[in-house]
């Protein structure tokens, strides 16, 4: 979406970041909720803060909104240091997780509330409200009170209200958290559309990795108040930089091992779990003897009945569990070492129950390409 991001997720280009979170720390008593976090967000980005509960993502969002003052660090929006500005003086609006719609006001009044403080004509206000209601397709319900709306409609009112003031930065706290699965998928695309149309920079807090992957131009993965990695969804998924990110995003097979040798971008690692040596591609391999982790996504492991002739990394196991999901199947294969490996295989061909690659207790071969494996040092 127009964002220039390098391979490792850092922003490139000469332009200043639109939102700069500069070494922000927030402490509550002895507890550090946000620990020295620095993030740069470009104008027009849809940036996600992703992490489990208690990782500090919501605190960081509240720091951006102005509800919390950081213990250390600065927040700069569009060149303006807003660290010490109260919420009502920031060019920022927020969509609350609970939506926080005013129960005593109609949809129209809710959406128009923030415009009361804007220097604009009554007609201008009315036009803006109508435009916002159009944007979220709620024009017919403008006279209703929040309690007369469904969850999805409330969510859209909250979004329209937060957008009405045309903020420089829109903060969304778990925007889809309260919706059911079907509605969530539809709303996801609605939010992306609206973001595209308005061009406003969005910062989204979410614990749902799928949501973050679909929505975002870039993601910051947070854990215990620390940013573990910043990058595009692809970078986060395919090139996690540490064990936390690898394990947090999607499912992954992880094997502990030690580097044996490395040459020409190919590193050999001894993995006791698979009972042998595997080769992985890695640009900056660690020295021989270094303790590392090899992580392989289930869908990158190929499962076959016979030993693949040209595979670099192949090992034998027995199918212990089999899950059939229609479009794909999940195999849990027990290796000789007792370690369970998960492999995912797409059901590209139509096949009956007896024509599957393998079934329970079958002996199978697992293999993966050196470029599919991730070598992690920390």
């Amino acid at each position: 979406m127009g964002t220039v991001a390098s391979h490792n997720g850092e922003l490139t280009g000469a332009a200043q970041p639109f939102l700069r979170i500069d070494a922000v720390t927030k402490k509550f008593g002895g507890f550090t909720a946000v620990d020295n976090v620095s993030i740069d967000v470009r104008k027009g980005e849809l940036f996600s803060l992703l992490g489990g509960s208690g990782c500090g993502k919501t605190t960081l969002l509240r720091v951006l909104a102005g509800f919390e003052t950081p213990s250390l660090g600065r927040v700069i929006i569009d060149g303006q240091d807003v660290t010490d500005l109260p919420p009502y003086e920031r060019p920022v609006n927020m969509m609350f997780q609970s939506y926080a719609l005013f129960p005593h006001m109609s949809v129209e009044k809710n959406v128009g509330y923030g415009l009361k403080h804007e220097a604009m004509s009554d007609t201008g206000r009315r036009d803006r409200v109508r435009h916002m209601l159009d944007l979220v397709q709620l024009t017919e319900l403008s006279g209703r009170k929040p309690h007369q709306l469904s969850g999805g409609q409330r969510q859209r009112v909250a979004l329209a209200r937060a957008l009405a003031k045309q903020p420089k930065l829109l903060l969304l706290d778990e925007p889809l958290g309260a919706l059911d699965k079907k509605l969530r998928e539809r709303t996801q695309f609605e939010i992306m559309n609206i973001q595209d149309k308005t061009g406003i920079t969005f910062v989204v807090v979410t614990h749902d990795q799928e949501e973050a992957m679909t929505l975002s131009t870039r993601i910051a993965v947070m854990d215990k108040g620390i940013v573990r990695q910043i990058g595009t969804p692809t970078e986060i998924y395919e090139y996690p930089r540490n064990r936390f990110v690898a394990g947090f995003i999607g499912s992954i097979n992880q094997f502990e091992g030690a580097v044996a040798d490395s040459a020409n971008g190919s590193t050999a690692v001894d993995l006791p779990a698979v009972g042998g040596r595997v080769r992985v591609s890695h640009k900056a391999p660690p020295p021989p003897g270094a303790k590392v982790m090899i992580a392989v996504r289930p869908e990158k492991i190929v499962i076959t009945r016979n030993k693949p002739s040209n595979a670099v990394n192949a090992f034998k196991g027995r199918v212990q569990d089999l899950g059939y999901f229609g479009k794909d199947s999940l195999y849990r294969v027990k290796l000789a070492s007792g370690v369970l490996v998960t492999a995912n295989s797409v059901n590209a061909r139509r096949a009956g129950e007896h024509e599957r690659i393998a079934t329970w207790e079958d002996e199978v071969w697992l293999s993966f390409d050196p470029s599919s494996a991730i070598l992690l040092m920390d």
Partner: protein
Amino acid sequence: MEGSRTLAADTDTTGLLPRGAGYSLRNWFNRRGWRNIIIASPYVWLLAFFLLPFLIVIAMSLATRAGTSPPFAFADTWPYVDFGNIARLFEDPVYVRAYLTSIYNAGIATALCLLLGYPMALAITRVRGTWRNIFLLLVILPFWTSFLLRVYAWIGLMGANSWFNKFLTAFINVLVPADMALRSIPMMNTNFAVVLVMVYSYLPFMILPLYANLERLDGTLNEAAMDLGSKPWQVFRDVTLPLSLPGIIAGGLLVFIPASGEVIIPSLVGDASDPMIGRVINDEFSAARDWPMASAVAVALLFMLVVPMMLYHRFESRAQAGSEVKS
């Protein structure tokens, strides 16, 4: 449920209940008797201890005073009732004045209770944990002492030689020129004293419903309003105040209604030449032994309080219905 209960009754083998009347009564009780009794009991209570006495008082107000016991009698001829008492309510300026004094004193006391109680209730919702409980305890602590005792304490405080009076006098004397300096403030036996003691006595009845209302308000609404550009006082005006209206009305009624009929406070600290209506009722009943007149005054007071409440209720439910129709 019902089926299984009937079955249980059918297979009653204890032999304690003979078949027939006892059996069907027990069956009826099991089916719906207990439920009906529980639902009906508050209605029975209201009927017996509110509606019935009220009807008796209305009837009494249409009788005339008599030297009998009880001291009233109905007319011998059709229509057996007498509207003289009701007419006197409007003709005799004593009653009109007493009503106006009551409403005036109760109105001012209610307004002052709201002005004092609202910030206190709001403050209590803003503190956490132990302190909140301590503050709530302080609000209801006066109830642990007899009401009468507390009114007598105020009599002591308001007397010309009390430290409280001297303190207030000194304070006022600082503000006024020396030649107008007071020796003491004549507080006792004034409407000021009535209002002061009523505010003191009824303040908890304002604070508690307000607190219950404010405590339930969603704090993120305040944040949302602030996020949309409202300064703290605007947040209060646009969000907290309108959403606490039910609490204000509940607290207001809980103060205004008993205050307008208050007997003890005006009798003990009030101006006897400018009585409130409660005192008039009391005097008519006990001193003048004019039960019908006292009843008429009481019925009129009740209507004065109930009619505005009913109008408000209708207005409120109509507003509710209106918003639903619009959707």
